[in-house]
């Protein structure tokens, strides 16, 4: 299969630039034909060099906390995938729960090819990151192998994450290649946007004299409570598609609050209940739906950005 690319729609470009939220329910790496750490990045030969007990499948399970890693250090490391035979379109990428900053001075690239050897004209780099000393999550909403505008890729076969630096052993909790669903508006007010609605969980013990002992289970977990009123069919379709992308609300998804201002400040969230209620509320065009979701642990955005 040969990959192809196309520009995003004008609305997608426009409203992303206007910081309207993006929903990403598709994780294109799921059910891959190949997923492995590979010594030379060539999926046609060699074998999996994943460290025992740290399989590459942990990198596309929609969860962080379990990191995959290769079994030895090297100056260049490859996490290689061959996507399933009917790959989803891809127009954004996210990498979360990694140790790139701890290693330091790494260059991280997202590469694609039509051939397992990652050679020839179809071998392209879609995104490059230089995290420096930061372990914060990485994001690219503007994948492109050429030009200056963001592209959407179809028919991807081979994908790899390449890390280059000194001898190192990268660890990655999640690599997410997705297909965005762009909203036209910010959620209706009142709306607690990024960094304005958190919950935590703690257990308190107090002695008779009132001395407390607090065990913190988690803190800084974002609560997403967004009510949106799309009023044209394009966005009605986007909402329904997003819901299907999440296996009808049963799987985690990415919520990008401010695509232009802070694309890497996204939340990996999960719906409280797997339901979508999307009724007409005015005339024949305006519908309303409410997303009630909780950020998924153990890696919460705000504590990550503000340790």
């Amino acid at each position, binding site marked *: 299969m040969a990959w192809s690319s196309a520009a995003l729609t004008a609305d997608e470009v426009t409203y992303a630039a206007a910081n309207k939220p993006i929903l990403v329910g598709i994780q294109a790496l799921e059910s891959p034909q190949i997923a492995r750490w590979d010594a030379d990045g060539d999926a046609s030969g060699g074998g999996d060099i994943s460290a025992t007990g740290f399989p590459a499948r942990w990198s596309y399970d929609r969860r962080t*906390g379990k990191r995959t890693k290769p079994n030895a250090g090297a100056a260049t490391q490859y996490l290689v995938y061959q996507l399933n035979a009917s790959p989803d379109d891809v127009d954004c990428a996210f990498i979360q729960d990694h140790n790139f900053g701890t290693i330091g001075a790494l260059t991280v690239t997202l590469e694609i090819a039509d051939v397992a050897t990652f050679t020839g004209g179809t071998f392209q780099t879609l995104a490059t990151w230089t995290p420096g000393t930061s372990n914060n999550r990485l994001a690219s909403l503007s994948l492109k192998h050429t030009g200056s505008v963001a592209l959407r890729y179809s028919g991807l076969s081979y994908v790899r994450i390449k890390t280059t630096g000194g001898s190192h052993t990268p660890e990655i909790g999640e690599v997410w290649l997705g297909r965005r669903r762009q909203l036209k508006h910010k959620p209706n007010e009142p709306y607690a946007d990024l960094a304005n609605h958190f919950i935590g969980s703690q*257990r308190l*013990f107090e*002695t008779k004299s009132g*001395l407390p*002992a607090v*065990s*913190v289970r988690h803190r800084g977990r974002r609560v997403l409570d967004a009510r949106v009123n799309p009023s044209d069919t394009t966005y009605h379709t986007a909402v329904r598609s997003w819901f299907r992308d999440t296996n009808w609300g049963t799987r985690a998804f990415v919520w990008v609050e401010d695509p232009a201002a802070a694309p890497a400040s996204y939340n990996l969230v999960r719906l409280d209940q797997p339901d979508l209620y999307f009724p007409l509320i005015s005339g024949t065009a305006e519908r309303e739906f409410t997303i009630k979701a909780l950020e998924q642990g153990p*890696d919460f955005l705000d504590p990550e950005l503000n340790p």
Partner: protein
Amino acid sequence: MTLTLNANWLERAQRDGYEEVFLVSITKGATTWDFTDQRTTQFSYPVAVHSVTPLAARMDVKTRRLEVDGMTVVIDDDAIRDVIVANRLRGAKLRVRHGFVDLALADFIDYWTGAIEAAFPEPSDEAKQGVVRFECLSMLEVLRQMATMGRWIQKHPLDVVYDILSVKMALPAALIDGTDTGGSTYDPDAAAYSAISHIVVTRAPFADYYIDHTVRDPTPALDLIDELAMLLNGSLYVNEEGELSFAVFDSTAASVETWDEDTIDELKQLSLDDDLFNRVEFQFMAASDNTMQNLQTAGLGAPQQGRWRGSHVVNDTDSQTNHAYPGMTSRIVTHKTSSPWIGEGGVAARISELDLDRNTSVSSTATSFVLVGALAATFAGTRESQDGSGSQPANAKISAARPLYLLTEFGEIIKATSLTVHAASVSVNVTYSNDVGGTTTHGPYHKLWSVSGVTRAMFGTTAQSFTRVVDVTVQQYVADQLLQRFGNGIAKIEVATGLDQWDKEIGDFISLEWPAYLGYARDGMTAAAGKWEIVMKEHVPEDNKIRWVLAWAGVNTPTYSHSSRVDPWGANVHALAKDGVEDDEVVQKHKSSGLTVSHTSGLIGSLSSGFASAGVIRSENPAATEITFRADSDNYVFWDLEASTAGVVAVSRGTSAPSASPMEILLAVVATHATSVFGIDNVTNVPTKAMNGSKLVSESVAATQLAPSAVTESKLAASAVTASAIAPAAITTPAVADATLGSVHIVQNERKTGMRYNAQFSTAKKG
């Protein structure tokens, strides 16, 4: 048992707002897989632990048996799937450690260690999206699952425990506390065991003497160990590292910390006097198998004689008095116990070597004598005496601090401070059929032992000549330990603390400062008042606390009385006790009927049939029984409620009466001269009812306690109150209020003649 917590862990636990992490490690062979339930900053393991069942452990104060709950650990399917596919995990080691998100791995503390017993995949509808639940057993429970057999001769209980763990169970050294570090946990010569280092147990065939306590049936290792631990008042426990360790209760041990209102949230008093008992009845030489034929006599190959059964009974008479029910003088609450590891049987006692083969007794005043018989090699103080000279480690020997207690066939308890091999050349081997079709010989064991440093008539028993003794050293030690602590019951409290008290363990002592505490002689609790033993520890993560149950660790100094005896005839001893309830309470001993002593002829008398009772024990003399009296004596005839036998204690005429044991009733005093009975005083003040009328004192039943019609006319039998029962002036005028009786019917003589209709009665007003 206190854990040693590293400073970094403790510092985190005392922070305001700590973030806990459980680290679960599964080890199979040389491979270990690690998972956490929380992101950590100092190391990186998969965050895949969904839940860890909180630790809970508890100890039965009386039996000192420790139970550590199993552990349930739930791990993410996707994280453990490959491990399960490639490995058989049943039996693999599972270790849980506890720490905090910013704590280095080395500073994590051990929380629980055991073995995986089962794994239960609980998948969701999508592969790898479910979880796997692991059910794990603590090492104690592993020992309960593993059965063993074996024979041990002349061993200290700790030696046997260690043998079971290291040889029979073949546990690696890393799982036995102290083994890999040269520790002294199981060394009977260690300082911690100096008071009990002389104790000896045996379970082996003494085939020539019809004695075999070999553990032939596969028996859970933990059951055997618990039996041994009971003899030492100790516990086998498993520490958080999963090591099997041992500790004895030591009331003199120091408190590890004082808890007060800054440490605990509230104090709940569970009981002021839990587990109260004031009598310990230790049965030995049980009649359940052929070991009842266990008297080894003159020692040089002679056959056994008699069928001995023994019972060492120790009473805390202070407690029995203090806890009597209303109107009673005492209340006996019995704790019954037994052990197959001790009391193999009795041996003969002779005054000297010259008398070894003669049936001569040891006099009532002798302070040294010789024990004769193979079974002497199973007595306390004989450990490691196998070499030719019988030399032993110092701690194995009897001493003033570790005395030997012997019980004679007449119930006298003898204390000795020295037991040495009498004749090194006289020894015996123990031969048994081994597992491979041949025979194995153990030995030689010395069969002649010198007893000296003797104190006769211990614990209020009477010195009498004797020919046979059994060893009751362990029985006395166990009874002493139990009665010191349980005579007044044990106060128990429940408290909760924060996580920073995690290092406290079952068996540790804690002091308390709690002004509101209330108990006998305790108006408030202070650290100086005494110590509490931790008997339950439970981590309750949902409340961020540790729940504790503490038992009072103070000990009393009881006043003892003994009624121990062995029965060389074995007909009736303890038949009732043996079949009775496990622990019982005695309300009052009393004679129900019969049991009258009469003269037959000469020095022969008869005890009539009858019944006596004490609480739940009912004792019967089914038929008249002949009794022989001693000449020129006052013969005190007792009825033993437990043995259902009559006993005669003869004293010189005119001397004071001997005391009855708690389970004996004095029936009669029979005076004799040289050839015949000349007087019988059937004692009349023996209680004849469990509760008699004299216990109903003035106004015992107040008028308000009698409901209207409480006593109806029909309840009063004809002539229930006769005229003679009403003393003159018993009913005085002021005692009968006006109108109390209402109309009075006055019987008039029937008119025989000229009688008018209904004229035989007339009506008058009272007063």
